[in-house]
């Protein structure tokens, strides 16, 4: 709702700029050094500037409110995110970090936000996803996207519509929890065939710093193959497996569990980055609105003063003409 209001304000605010014959007052606001009064003008209307000041003030109110909202949401989600950071570490300790693994079917899971006005985090994850697509493309290779969130969807639909396998939106309607994320992970595992899942998200570092990150989750077959081939996963063979009947079964369970855990942390990190980015974006736009308001006020006062001066001169010179 706030965003719709903002857009409306924006339109109102843009109209004087687009109008065919901008008034003096407006031009002077853009180039303050220019004298606002041109010769021959007797009375300058301050109406336009006044309207614009009002709309800038309204925009500032909205952005300030949005910043407050983002700040309070950030605080809640930041603790959650920090608490969830332990969840994926055992998996990385066991299965290693394998971004360079060479497999046939890559699935890129791009995590983004549903709402805009949050800086560049969504375009960053889209850019990284595209780059991963390019990096892993080759003959006999398949790259697919799974898109989470409205914003990455809009950007990826434009040029790689044929590669998108699955789109999910409205993740954050309810506060994020593990059950919800594991349902999403389950959906992805059921509907998409993969050898390696690459999860792209923005890791939250501080309110102004977000690190684009890629986590890799391998399918059980690939894990087994890599473990036999040695290398990074070579140690996995030395582990005794307890639980289900076969090792493959345990690995299957393990891979699915790993995916849900990594997804949970990734979704939280991205949500946290989103709130942080929105907060700083809204902060800078309220500051901008404040600056603009100052400039407009200056112009407005100057124009008013100029018209008063002109009127005075007219009266005085008229009087002196009568006298003389």
């Amino acid at each position: 709702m706030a965003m719709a209001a903002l857009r409306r304000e924006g339109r109102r605010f843009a109209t004087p700029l687009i109008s065919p014959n901008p008034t003096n007052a407006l031009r002077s606001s853009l180039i303050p050094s220019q004298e606002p009064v041109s010769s021959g003008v007797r009375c300058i209307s301050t109406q336009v500037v006044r309207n614009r000041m009002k709309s800038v003030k309204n925009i500032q109110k909205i952005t300030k409110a949005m910043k407050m909202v983002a700040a309070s949401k950030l605080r809640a989600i930041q603790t959650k995110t920090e608490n969830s950071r332990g969840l994926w570490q055992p998996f990385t300790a066991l299965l290693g970090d394998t971004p360079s693994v060479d497999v046939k079917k890559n699935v890129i899971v791009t995590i983004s936000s549903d709402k805009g006005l949050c800086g560049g985090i969504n375009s960053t994850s889209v850019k990284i996803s595209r780059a991963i697509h390019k990096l892993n493309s080759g003959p006999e290779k398949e790259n697919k996207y799974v898109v989470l969130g409205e914003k990455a969807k809009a950007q990826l639909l434009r040029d790689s519509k044929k590669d998108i396998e699955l789109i999910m939106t409205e993740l954050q309607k309810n506060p994020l929890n593990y059950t919800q994320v594991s349902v999403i992970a389950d959906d992805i595992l059921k509907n998409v065939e993969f050898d390696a899942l690459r999860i792209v998200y923005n890791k939250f570092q501080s309110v102004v710093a977000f690190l684009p990150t890629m986590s890799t989750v391998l399918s059980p077959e690939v894990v087994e193959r890599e473990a036999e081939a040695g290398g990074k996963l070579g140690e996995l063979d030395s582990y005794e497996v307890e639980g289900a009947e076969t090792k493959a079964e345990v690995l299957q369970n393990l891979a699915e569990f790993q995916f849900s855990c990594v997804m949970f942390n990734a979704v939280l990190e991205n949500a946290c980055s989103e709130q942080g980015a929105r907060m700083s974006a809204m902060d800078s736009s309220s500051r901008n609105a404040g600056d603009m308001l100052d400039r407009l006020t200056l112009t407005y006062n100057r124009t008013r003063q100029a018209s008063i001066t002109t009127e005075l001169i007219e009266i005085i010179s008229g009087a002196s003409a009568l006298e003389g």
Partner: protein
Amino acid sequence: MLRHGSRFLSRATTMRWRRPFSTNLAADAPVDSNFLESWRKAIPNVEPPKTPSAFMATRPETPSSIPSKLTVNFVLPYSSELSGKEVDMVIIPATTGQMGVLPGHVATIAELKPGVLSVHEGNDVSKYFVSGGFAFVHANSFADIIAIEAVPLDRVDPNLVQKGLTEFTQKLSTASTDVEKAEAQIGVDVHSALNAALTG
């Protein structure tokens, strides 16, 4: 003036122990150099993304002699119950039976079933009821336990457990579809495990 000094010191150490997982480490952790190279070659104008190993501490190599303590990480989706805590023994409810893990245990991957996880530290024993998950025991006397849900055993209400048990047993007998049956079976399993943990 220095009266509070000890408090600050102790706070500093507890803080270090409480959340060593969440600290962002410097980028000196090993990053896959093959990945970085191929990335720079294919996409020169975009910085390569970070990978998870950049954000976690490296685990030590397997020591030649068996250490005296076991380092345990016990994590849940919403918190890290234990992180890097050094204990004497943990007993893990694996699907194949209770599994005691001491330092120097053989490297193992175990699936968990609903049951009691007990952490022995000197004479202190803390017991948790876990709902299921995975446990990894590494050769370097590190144990990672990941569970979906865990509660200290003293916070479980026996009356509610009994009530839930009868409820799910009833459901199991009346269940018609496979899904309902499986759900009821899970409920019965969890509640009987809880019951056994409380009475036993």
